[in-house]
């Protein structure tokens, strides 16, 4: 996918949402929640599929928090439905654009689900993932076109590549964060005391 600006992605994504939910695109803004537009779970699947085929990307099927909880293990980022301090640190690092005030006080997992359903969040995610989809063939420079099952094929030389999955990229990001930010200070008794 050739580079697209944020507003190009937004316009295109809005059209996908409007068509799927049969609503007027003018109802859709960056801070609109997909569920407030009436999207049900299967609508989200449809929107996901349409987005993947139009932008040539492979969206993750779970949130970054869920992937991170799998990597960190239970109870570290989230406990009894609320973010821990460690969890807040993680998400602020992952989402520097988010308003820091959103992480003040008690933050419930359901509040984050709301955030993950925001149109603006999807637009940013699409833009990030599209970076991993080459517009040109690595070997011959020919134009790449969508092929079956999350693959792209060069229209000139026929070389095929598999798209990076959003899930896999998220997991890599989380593992790097874990090694860089969490393990060093989790291993040091001094900072554990400080955190308490």
């Amino acid at each position: 996918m050739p580079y697209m600006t944020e507003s190009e992605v937004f316009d295109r994504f809005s059209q996908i949402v409007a068509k799927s939910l049969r609503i007027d695109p003018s109802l859709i803004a960056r801070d609109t929640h997909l569920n407030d537009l009436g999207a049900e779970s299967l609508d989200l699947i449809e929107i996901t599929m349409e987005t993947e085929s139009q932008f040539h990307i492979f969206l993750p099927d779970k949130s970054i928090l869920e992937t991170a909880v799998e990597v960190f293990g239970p109870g570290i980022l989230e406990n009894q439905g609320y973010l821990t301090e460690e969890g807040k640190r993680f998400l602020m690092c992952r989402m520097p654009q988010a308003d820091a005030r959103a992480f003040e006080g008690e933050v419930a997992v359901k509040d984050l689900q709301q955030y993950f359903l925001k149109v603006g969040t999807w637009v940013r995610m699409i833009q990030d993932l599209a970076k991993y989809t080459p517009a040109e063939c690595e070997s011959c420079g020919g134009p790449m076109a969508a092929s079956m099952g999350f693959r792209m094929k060069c229209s000139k030389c026929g070389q095929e590549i598999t798209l990076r999955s959003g899930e896999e990229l998220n997991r890599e990001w989380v593992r790097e964060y874990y090694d860089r930010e969490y393990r060093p200070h989790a291993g040091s008794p001094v900072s554990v005391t400080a955190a308490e």
Partner: protein
Amino acid sequence: MGNLVYDSSVPQTWLPEVCRLDTFPHAPDVLADMILTPAERAHWTAMRAVEKRRHEWLLGRYAAKEAVRLVLEKNLDVRLSPDQIEIVTDPYGCPQVEYGQQAGHLLKPVLSIAHSQGTAVALAVLDPGARVGIDLESLAHRREDFETVAFSPDERGLLAALPADLRSEWALRMWCAKEAVGKALGRGLSAGLLAFHIARVDLSTGAVEIELRASALDQCPQLRGKSLEVQTNRESCFVSSTFIYHQGAAAMRPSRQEILDYLLQKMGELTQDWDYPDPVGPESLLFTGLGFESLDAVVLCTAIQEHYQTPMPFAELLAEIGQQQRDLSINELADFVNTHLRPSSGEASRRVQ
């Protein structure tokens, strides 16, 4: 109302209540005034959403309150009005029941709500330890290829083996089943769609069996290796699913062999000091063979009901064999328990006008 406080030693009847609504009995704002608590009313007023979403939210709350109201009335003979029942959500977003001060100590049912295309359904079960999930989806306007995202190759294999005219309906039933289990476990499908693996479907009963995998198992390690049975139904253009999991053994549906093993072990405990010439086996007869008195039978029946946390009509069974002047083998007892363990959530469905 002191006797209404939950006492885990008393077997509960736990009749599930499903309420389904597809029309507003009054204009939405009038209904909101009638049924919502002040906090819910504030939420309704502040809701910035399209009309479809606002109406479905309100209908969902109404269905939930009706299900709670009816489950209390039928099981405890307690009558509350809808505005005495507040539906709140836990930190993960799951609905929960709260009462006002007058009924603060009343047993709280567990609850699940779903809505789709102008219809709302709610499921309430009067067992605070249970986990329940309900889902509702419309058959209309589905992308044919949603199955490629929603299901694993194995699950698509199950679908491919079905008669062609049933495939799209069963794809939706399978989806609903995953949703219902996700809701019952409290985290929705956040563990990923493939973590809710569909092992079997039963076309004749509508049952869909799910096994948890990967991170869904991390959320509920006690369900490893268990088969979770979800009941699915089709009604006109909607497919719905209900899943009820009692923390006891009931929803895990022990096999008949497991039931027999348990009974033999229990018999062994009860008759520890009794002297028998022959070992106790599946064909041993309770009264003539093992020398049971009626009190021993009552002790055994109580133990079985407590173990499976399910009330069973033992009184009828004992009366019947008394009338017929016959005995009861452990094998027959296992059959009886096996028959009465399956939850029949589908039968409790009713429409509220």
